[in-house]
């Protein structure tokens, strides 16, 4: 119960540090989701429609990558962005940009795999129609993506969920620097380490509330869109 009242007090106080942390968490994760979608949606759709040697292997690999441990993704990004790594001169380690890259890597397989699954089903359904219109598989991609947009939202939300909830990757590549790369999840980890468990739970509740709000919004827009689309 202490955690609930602590969470409420934290929000009510409008603590600028808390707002900054929430803002950074959202900025990082939403940017990562956007990048994941810009790359993952077309790639997933093409994977659903194109036939090429080794396609099954690619499908299995992306399915498996949905289970990529965030710590491993973080470590790889860390080694690449480190000053001693190949992209060291860009000076991106311990920055929000590094966290966005790590999260986008975590999101990408989810968006690709779920998009592939949705588009494959749609293609089965509309194959005859699209063929009769003389549409090639590749040119059907935008049509099918648009048609499956409501189902695709679920995949995008799954990607958002994975990114907003993870701590292993952002901790390694961001460094949990106060006022610079501290997000909700790394702040929760820090408060747990300090033994301030009620503050940690309070932050967890706030993160859940933010996630719930976003999901409610997405669901509401989806419902509205379905009705509008008839």
């Amino acid at each position, binding site marked *: 119960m202490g955690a609930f009242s602590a969470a409420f007090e934290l929000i009510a106080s409008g603590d600028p540090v808390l707002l900054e942390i929430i803002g950074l968490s959202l900025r990082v994760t*939403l940017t990562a989701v956007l990048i994941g979608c810009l790359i993952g949606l077309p790639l997933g759709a093409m994977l659903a429609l194109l036939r090429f040697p080794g396609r099954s292997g690619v499908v299995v690999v992306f399915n498996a990558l949905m289970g990529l441990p965030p710590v491993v993704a973080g470590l790889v990004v860390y080694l690449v962005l480190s*000053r*001693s790594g190949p992209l*060291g001169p860009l000076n991106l380690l311990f920055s*929000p940009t590094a966290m966005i890259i790590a999260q986008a890597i975590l999101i990408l397989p989810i968006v690709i795999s779920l998009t592939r699954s949705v588009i494959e089903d749609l293609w089965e359904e509309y194959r005859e129609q699209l063929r009769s219109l003389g549409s090639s598989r590749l040119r059907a991609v935008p049509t099918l993506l648009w048609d499956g947009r409501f189902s695709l939202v679920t995949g995008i939300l799954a990607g958002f969920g994975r990114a907003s909830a993870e701590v292993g990757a952002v901790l390694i590549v961001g*460094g949990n620097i106060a006022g610079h790369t501290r997000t909700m999840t790394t702040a929760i980890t820090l408060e747990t*380490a300090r033994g301030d468990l009620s503050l940690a739970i309070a932050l967890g509740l706030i993160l859940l509330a933010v996630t719930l709000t976003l999901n409610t919004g997405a669901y509401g827009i989806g419902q509205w869109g379905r009705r509008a689309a008839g």
Partner: protein
Amino acid sequence: MITCRHLVLGAAIALLPVAAAAQEGEYITVASTTSTEQSGLFGHILPLFEEETGIEVRVVAQGTGQALETGRRGDADVVFVHARELEEAFVEEGYGVERFDVMYNDFVIVGPGDDPAGIADAESAAEAMAAIAAAEAPFASRGDDSGTHVAELNLWEAAGVVPEGSWYRETGSGMGPTLNTASQMNAYALTDRGTWLSFQNRGELEFLFEGDEVLFNPYGVILVNPEMHDHVKAEAGQAFIDWLISDAGQEAIASYKVEGEQLFFPNANGAS
């Protein structure tokens, strides 16, 4: 139209980090330990330094071993850690310029209130550790190559004990998580005083042993060698080190208190 609007919005979100980066002033990255961060020391002294110099200090809190590795890779400008031997090796290998004494705190041994191994009356830290091993009372070890872990291993060696068996549990994590574990298992643990004093989830753990000189825990600060990594912000990093060992920095460290107790004792002018 909707997609168009989405794209504009998306581009705006994507550009946010870039915009934020453009506003940044001068900053240095300091790789330090969990004990300095989690005890709240940095929260107390860094604003004073930033106000005086305008240089922002970004602290990445890691175990001493990891912090030195961060320095070796050139991912920090300054390392601020506590494991004398490792620090000296870091300088000898050429990764660090010079080690400066800054301050010390001390380690204490905490454990279950009923003290099954009877360490509260021990004459020395080594005797206390030997008693824990003899009683095979649960002991939670950091097990992470941190400064605290290194100090703990030295104590076992002094006690003539090879710590192994089901009573000896390595958590492989930071000081706070290790104390959380110890609190749940009612285990003994070696901790720095600062983390213990600011730690809130103590359960039945109590403060049992302190005061042996071998428990003193000196912190050193080292500039990462610009000859190894030419992007190191040597000037700003050195300014931070100079401030830490100046009167102003030393006073700032001494004035940090938790529950009325001073956690860190400045010793910049002491023998190095």
